[in-house]
């Protein structure tokens, strides 16, 4: 993945360059360009607002995968405090595609766990582009059970293309590791808030995603399959990626509409990477609010509600009658 701006970012960057040139020119030659400048600046504001309001599904996919987008460790640094990372699944190895440890939000201890992509090729080799192996999911479960033991809540940050499809992953039971997390997360006697911060890639994302509240950043995506994979299978051509992205209904707004996501967290104009501190502040505010609400429930009530939440997910009808 290259670090060049996205196509819709280029138009904005071009206008920003024009404004800059005009300002330089005015300064050098002592011209009064206030009127022109204000026109251009208004145009830039409009362009930004319109662009980010009307992004297509595939443009959201590009933003969700943006190489400059804040990742889990960025949010941990910006929104949390007192982080101490914990490593390893106690069985095989430490999978660096998932990070986790104790941290604080507003002074209170919790366990934060998330997928971690690499910022450059070297880090990506270590972090496997944020695609965990079974031991990553097993580490995550170990940390969640540790949180439960000390009655601390859990926050998960979701950002993965998917669970890694490889030989070692299959040998060590990728499916079993994911399945176990789904079952055990349903059972945990402590509040869980999951936030999709970038890419929510299918089962590999869901394995950190069973929660009392599911939040999603505005430009994050969450899907059963990547648009590329879906295009290849159903349309039988990668050229159908854009159509697949639309059809899959994978944007935050789509998921809120389908009743899966509890809250869409607005991003700064230009996306989370444009102003990471602001994005982190918004994430932090939402996490705190949901954790506060959940903190009033006793574990039995919490689990009952969690089970009811998931049992209510799905859309079916009775033959010959309407749908539910």
């Amino acid at each position: 993945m290259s670090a060049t701006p996205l196509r819709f970012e280029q138009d904005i960057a071009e206008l920003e360059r024009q404004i800059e040139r005009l300002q330089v020119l005015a300064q050098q030659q002592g011209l009064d360009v206030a009127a022109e400048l204000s026109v251009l600046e208004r145009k830039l504001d409009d362009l930004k607002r319109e662009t980010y309001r009307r992004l297509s599904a595939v443009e959201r996919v590009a933003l969700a995968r943006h190489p400059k987008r804040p990742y889990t460790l960025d949010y941990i640094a910006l929104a949390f405090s007192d982080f101490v990372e914990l490593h390893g699944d106690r069985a095989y190895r430490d999978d660096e595609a998932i990070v986790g440890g104790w941290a604080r939000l507003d002074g209170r201890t919790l366990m934060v766990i998330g997928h971690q992509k690499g910022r450059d090729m070297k880090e990506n080799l270590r972090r496997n582009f944020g695609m965990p192996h079974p031991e990553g999911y097993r580490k995550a479960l170990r940390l969640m059970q540790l949180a439960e033991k000390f009655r601390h809540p859990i926050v998960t940050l979701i950002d993965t293309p998917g669970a890694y499809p490889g030989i070692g992953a299959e040998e060590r039971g990728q499916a079993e590791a994911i399945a176990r997390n789904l079952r055990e997360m349903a059972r945990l006697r402590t509040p869980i808030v999951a936030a999709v911060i970038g890419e929510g890639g299918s089962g590999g994302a869901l394995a950190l995603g069973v929660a009392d509240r599911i939040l999603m950043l505005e430009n994050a995506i969450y899907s059963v399959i990547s648009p590329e994979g879906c295009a290849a299978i159903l349309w039988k051509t990668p050229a159908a990626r854009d159509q697949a992205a639309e059809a899959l209904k994978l944007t935050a707004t789509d998921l809120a509409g389908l009743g899966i996501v509890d809250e869409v967290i607005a991003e700064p104009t230009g996306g989370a990477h444009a102003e990471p501190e602001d994005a982190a502040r918004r994430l932090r505010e939402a996490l705190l609010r949901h954790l506060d609400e959940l903190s009033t429930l006793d574990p039995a009530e919490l689990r009952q509600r969690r089970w009811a939440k998931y049992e209510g997910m799905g859309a079916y009808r009775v033959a010959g009658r309407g749908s539910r």
Partner: protein
Amino acid sequence: MTWFRKPKRKLQAGERRELPTDVFEKCPQCAEILYRARLAQNLYVCPVCGRHLRIQAEDYLRFLLDDGDFDEHDAELRSADPLGFFDLKPYPQRLEAAERKTGRGDAVITGAGRLDGIPVYIAVMDFEFIGGSMGSVVGEKIARLGRRALEHRRPLIVVSASGGARMMEGILSLMQLAKTSAVLAQLHEAGVPYISILTDPTTGGVTASYGMLGDVHLAEPGALIGFAGPRVIEQTIKQELPEGFQRAEFLLEHGMVDRITDRRELKATVAQLLRHMLGLPAAVPAGDGETVEPEESAPPPPDEGAASQQRRKGERGEAAD
């Protein structure tokens, strides 16, 4: 309802297999030409090489359940096409075609029966229905069946065959993994046995949820079982996969399944396992027709003490059954 005995749903020998005659079938492994009636008697296991041919969902019900008696549940559930999904054709058209082809509303049959006298809830998936994919209907039927198993404390058996989550229902399909697992979490805590039977092929979301959450995992010989499909893995790692990769024997070797069980021994094995887990006496050899009569089959969970056992008995005594 003895659903099998409906003439319409009676399995026609040869209705799905592609050999030109109804009388013979060629084994895809050893190429032996096999007499179909004999093959059916052998539960579609090749008598020469032992290859387990794919069979229909009804076939499993017929040989696993006593007298093939099966009370089907929730047969009327259908997908609601929540996304209005349209690829090369609309999803409702794919659903209709699948229903015409298989004679059922979605990729799983669920219901109740008895296995060696033990009352069980059983689900069998159908790979012929859009690749046995799990959407909202499969998830809901499995979840309902699990809840019934929980309520009546009767064992749950799921025979899986699936390519994974159903893309055409998007995120709702993915959430069925969590939904079914949440019900299994409750079953697990309640100490009600769940046996997962993995048949050829079981991959993706079904393996990554209820497929791998059994108290016991049984796999049919040679079955392809995994998370990612072999083609996806080959494309990712850009090398050929080793012989036998993701086959049942590979999973046994790597500790992911408890046993590989020949289809002809499947019923006896499941019965034996259930008798152990339920605390029932071993089956009497050749003692056919012995039935187990408790309303609640599963013993109480270990963390409930004697007092709650007492309470349970009391409640049952007062009930008007």
